[in-house]
């Protein structure tokens, strides 16, 4: 979870078995009918349906529960396709309207039923961009950032993105039609300690939250950590958590008068 708070994404390689991927390609080719915004998962995808079985895979279900908890709403879903040698790259963007919730977040599941090569133009995402207060495609001017993630993955990969993460579909320069299925989930419970917190005080947690990314400017990189600390406090309920005294010193307002 600490890595998700720092990076804004969680990648599960090849967690969907081959037979389900083969079925998935057929399902996605026929499109998945839309559901109304805010439909509970169990209503949106009936028992036994392809999407329901995808979401019930243990690693997928576990990650979803850890991030947004039980019975999230399906905000919306969409089958993204990139024609062979066709289409332009999407501009770098965040989904929906600007969303500045400091104590909650949606996640976007992205499922890749086939192996994605660099040439196929998989999803571009920018690690650590999710806490930036930018609106949709206003970031379209940025073509490349140091440390960007140009997704190359095996078939059956599922990636979860924080709703604010900058991302975009890259241009497909291959001979292969590329599919990606996206579902956005809204939490229906407070997102606090929804995951296995038995290692909450492991030093690796601090190391993950302290991560810097190569595209950060020097000054703003410090603010990124400041904001992560605030989000981590929300997720853990630990109001005293800090890294290198960043938040503590900047909020220190002693009330005691010196004797």
């Amino acid at each position, binding site marked *: 979870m600490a890595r998700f708070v720092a990076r804004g994404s969680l990648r599960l390689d090849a967690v969907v078995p081959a037979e389900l991927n083969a079925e998935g390609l057929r399902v996605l080719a026929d499109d998945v009918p839309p559901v109304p915004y805010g439909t509970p998962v169990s209503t949106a995808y009936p028992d036994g349906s392809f999407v329901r079985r995808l979401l019930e895979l243990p690693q997928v279900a576990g990650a979803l529960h850890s991030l947004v908890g039980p019975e999230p709403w399906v905000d919306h879903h969409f089958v993204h396709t990139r024609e062979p040698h066709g289409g332009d790259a999407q501009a770098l963007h965040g989904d929906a309207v600007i969303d500045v919730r400091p104590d909650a977040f949606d996640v976007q599941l992205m499922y890749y039923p086939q192996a994605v090569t660099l040439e196929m133009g998989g999803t571009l995402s920018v690690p650590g961009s999710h806490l930036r207060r930018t609106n949709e495609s206003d970031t379209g001017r940025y073509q490349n950032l140091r440390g960007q993630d140009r997704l190359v993955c095996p078939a059956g990969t599922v990636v979860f993105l924080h709703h604010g993460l900058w991302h*975009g579909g*890259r241009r497909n320069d291959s001979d292969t039609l590329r599919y990606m299925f996206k579902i956005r989930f809204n939490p229906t419970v407070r997102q606090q300690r929804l995951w296995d917190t038995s290692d909450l005080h492991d030093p690796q947690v601090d190391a993950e939250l302290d991560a810097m990314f190569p*595209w950060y*400017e020097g000054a703003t990189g410090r603010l990124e950590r400041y904001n992560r600390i605030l989000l981590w406090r929300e997720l853990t309920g630990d109001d005293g958590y800090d890294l290198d005294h960043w938040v503590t010193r900047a909020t220190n307002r002693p009330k005691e008068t010196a004797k």
Partner: protein
Amino acid sequence: MTTSSTRQQVLVLYLSDSALDSHVVGWSRYDGTGRTSPTTGDSDEPPYETGVAALRDGWRLFQAAQLIPPYPGHEYDVSFLKHEFFFERIVT
């Protein structure tokens, strides 16, 4: 349709701080000649290590981002990249 035989190429560099010799953290290119089609996510390595390196290679700087203090109450907000530098190169 212009009859001019020269065209503008534009390079945008995003730098680590407001100094032109700080290192590149992001980049974009636009080609008025139509010979290349730069686009989102097309390269992982920047064309130059610093803004000054682009000057040395013949690019002409024509715009740098203003330094604007944070609005009161928004000192900890993070948003767009702040240190944006536009360069041009005129080619035939």
